[in-house]
């Protein structure tokens, strides 16, 4: 009888040891963010997360890649947004993950500047180079992009377009930091941040016929980003009139409609 008991104990221990064997896939931890979409190709899964539902303009995204259900910890991840509407096919500006090592939660941090809204036509391509197996695969994750009017595409020269992106914020009465991003593209697929533009920003209330004082024109902070300050004197519908000039494109105008609460 004692032999049978010891045999049972040994079997249980063996069972536990097998369950924790490094050769078994560990269930990936739950991500405390909003899952935007995911897709799998040849055993590689790309999961795209965000803090909030994605919309036009600047969207910080978080990508987790898994191979056969196991989160990769050493992979080169490249994000390639793509919009194909048949008659139009283009990408948009991206800030790629900086490192091949994900953060402590297993996420690769990146950002995408979606240039227009669409519920069906955007895909976020995630190119994965698995350093462990030296395998490269691209997984296309469909995403839905809602409208918010934060992006203005302005023709520069005949062959260039400037993409002005207003960083969304919870606009409030008083002085607000206002951030714009400026990218330049010639073909719609390659985008270059513009850091040498001169920006002038004028907040107005068209329904009231006035603006405000104390505003600070945006200046470059690098990476295509510009930061200024706008004084919203009351709640309601405001308009930001942005005028930009570069050496190649003397005057570029963009207007943004925002609501101050």
């Amino acid at each position: 009888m004692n032999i049978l008991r010891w045999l049972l104990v040994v079997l249980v221990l063996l069972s536990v040891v097998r369950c924790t064997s490094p050769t078994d896939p560990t269930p990936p931890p739950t991500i405390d963010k909003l899952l935007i979409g995911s897709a799998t190709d040849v055993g590689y899964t790309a999961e795209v997360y965000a803090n909030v539902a994605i919309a036009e303009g600047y969207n910080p995204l978080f990508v987790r890649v898994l191979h056969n259900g196991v989160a990769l910890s050493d992979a080169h991840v490249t994000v390639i947004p793509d919009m194909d509407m048949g008659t139009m096919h283009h990408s948009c500006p991206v800030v790629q993950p900086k490192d091949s090592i994900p953060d402590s939660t297993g996420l690769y941090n990146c950002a995408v500047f979606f240039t227009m809204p669409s519920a069906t036509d955007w895909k976020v391509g995630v190119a994965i180079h698995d350093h462990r197996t030296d395998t490269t695969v691209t997984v296309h994750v469909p995403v839905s992009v809602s409208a918010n009017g934060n992006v203005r595409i302005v023709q520069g020269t005949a062959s260039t377009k400037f993409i002005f992106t207003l960083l969304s914020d919870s606009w409030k009465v008083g002085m607000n930091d206002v951030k714009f991003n400026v990218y330049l593209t010639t073909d719609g697929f390659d985008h270059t941040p513009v850091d040498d533009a001169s920006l002038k920003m004028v907040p107005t209330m068209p329904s009231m016929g006035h603006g405000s004082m104390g505003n600070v024109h945006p200046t470059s902070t690098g990476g295509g980003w510009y930061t200024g300050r706008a004084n919203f004197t009351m709640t309601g519908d405001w308009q930001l009139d942005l005028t930009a000039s570069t050496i190649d494109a003397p005057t570029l105008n963009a207007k943004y409609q925002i609501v101050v609460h």
Partner: protein
Amino acid sequence: MIVVATIASIILFTATAARSQDTVRTIVVREVVVEADPLLKSWRLNRPLSSSGSVDDLMRLGGLTLIQRANGFAGEASMLGLRGGQMNTSIDGMKIHAACVDKMDPSTAYVEIDNLSTLDVSSDATDLRYGQNLGGSVNFTLKQPALNTPVRSVIDVSGESNASMRRLRADVSGGTPDIALRAGYTLRSADDMRSGDGSTIALSGFTKHNLQVGSLWKVGDHDNVSAVLIADLATDVGYPALIMDTRKAQALIGAVTWRSVWSSFVTTSTKVYANSVDHSMDDYDRPLSEIQNRAFMPNMYMPMVGTTAVYGLIVESAYAASEDILKVVIDGTYLAATATMNMMPLDTTVSSMQLTNIGDARVGTLGTSVSWERLLTEDLTIRFGTRVDVSSRTIKDEQFRSVLGGYFPDADLDRLTGALSANVSAYYTIAEGLNVWSVLARSERMPTHLELYGFWLYDPQANIVTIGRPDLSNEQAWSLDIGTSYRDEDLSFSISGWIRTINNYIAAVPTTDTSTTGEPPTRTMGSIGTADLAGFDARATVRVLPWWSMQASVRGIWGVGVTIDDPLPLIAPVQASIRAVVGERVLQGELAVFASAAQNRISRSILPEDATASWARADVLIAWRPITELRIQASCTNVLDAFYHEHTSINNMPSRGRSFNLGVRAEL
């Protein structure tokens, strides 16, 4: 109107008697005191005259100019070309601040004539007891119940043909040797008024309730404590000259005062008070076409709400000896003020908006005034006066701070500032009843919270939008008054003149050129440099016969912004009045003629205004008092139905046309 206000003393050159042990001496002050209830005065040279049913009427009798925005309601006091923060207006020394940022509810709008005992007007920069001013001080003294008086009630009912204006007053008071009580209620109501051209001025009616309760306790042989509470509520007050009307204006005013006689030389008074004012206005009663087509902010409704609260302490002490009178006043106040405006576009696709006009402004001020009068000889009195104020100013609303901080990034929104005024006067008796006097004053006043922090305030007359400036400097003035007067039983007259130069004159300074857009220009409060004011005042009363007296007065003011070479705005032209009073105690009659010259000397840049034509108006009054307890009064104001407007009437709102008035007052 039954309550008849009198000019009890046209100018009291020999009015204030300070009693020492066995000496009565005469102190000369240049002050106009108007009795709110003339029936309490004896029948004398300055006999009861002139119908007066409102504080506005009372202020006119006191020589004040009213900046008028409504029909006999809430006139803004002005004197000597000074207005707003340049003069000090108080109720029993208490500061009450308007809650409306568009000046629709000056503090005087929250008291009724039945709350008052007297109106004291000081016009020579010597009265610094209750606040800094550049030369004008107006103080209403509140009515107090009296000890050892039988129960007395008064019912006063009157009506006028114009605007169907009606007034009801009920008052009961009485006192034992130790305690006295008084309660009074006033209702005033009016429909739309008719001007002298026969047209009805739409949205010019109002309704107003006022309740006052007061008490007096004798707490010792030399001490008493009084308490007063006034609740005032006005509803649906039309402001035809403006773009909005008052929906509700209410005030609660309370004070407790301890008066003590320490010796025959020393008296003290300590008052603790608080008041709150809530004002709401809107344009809901305006026709849609007006909303759609007005020049300023068309196509939207814009209700506004404002509140102020004031807490204060006044400690007054006086030492009076045979040759000296020393008075010290410590005056502390704390003000909290907020005002907001909502904008609701007719176009529902446009978001509603909210604007903060005053974001929880806080102003705490502690002032000390000292005056010393000394009888140098039997004929010569000199007087020194000074006041020092220290004031902290800030705004608490974080979003409003952010907005204003954006406009004025270099300005300190949390300021500690001060002001110092001083004056010296000499009064000389040339012969019995004949005096000359002169006052030299250096005055200083701090900007008001509206001048500092008011944001996006609309001036409908000049069609400008003004924005306060948190780093405004104080206004400072030098002034010189000279005058002479004579008084005996049958004749009194006075002639006086004054000049005043004001540095850092605060006004709305143009900041944006909107001439091409048609939008109202935006102006920021600032200094327009130096401004000069000068004026004269002459008045006389003569008793022609024992039953017939005549009064006449004429005054004129001249003002100019020297630095920018522009006449000062809202300066009344030369004005004159003649009164003939006949009768005796039972039956009295009065004919009064008021006339004003044209004002063609107008501001074109400081606060653009237009010229005003000359006008004249005549009033007649008959009062019958068959028994002491009953008085019946009939009068007609603007007998000739003249169509006119005063120069200080905003947007040229016409004055009332002819009105027949009938009133009955009974005392029980």
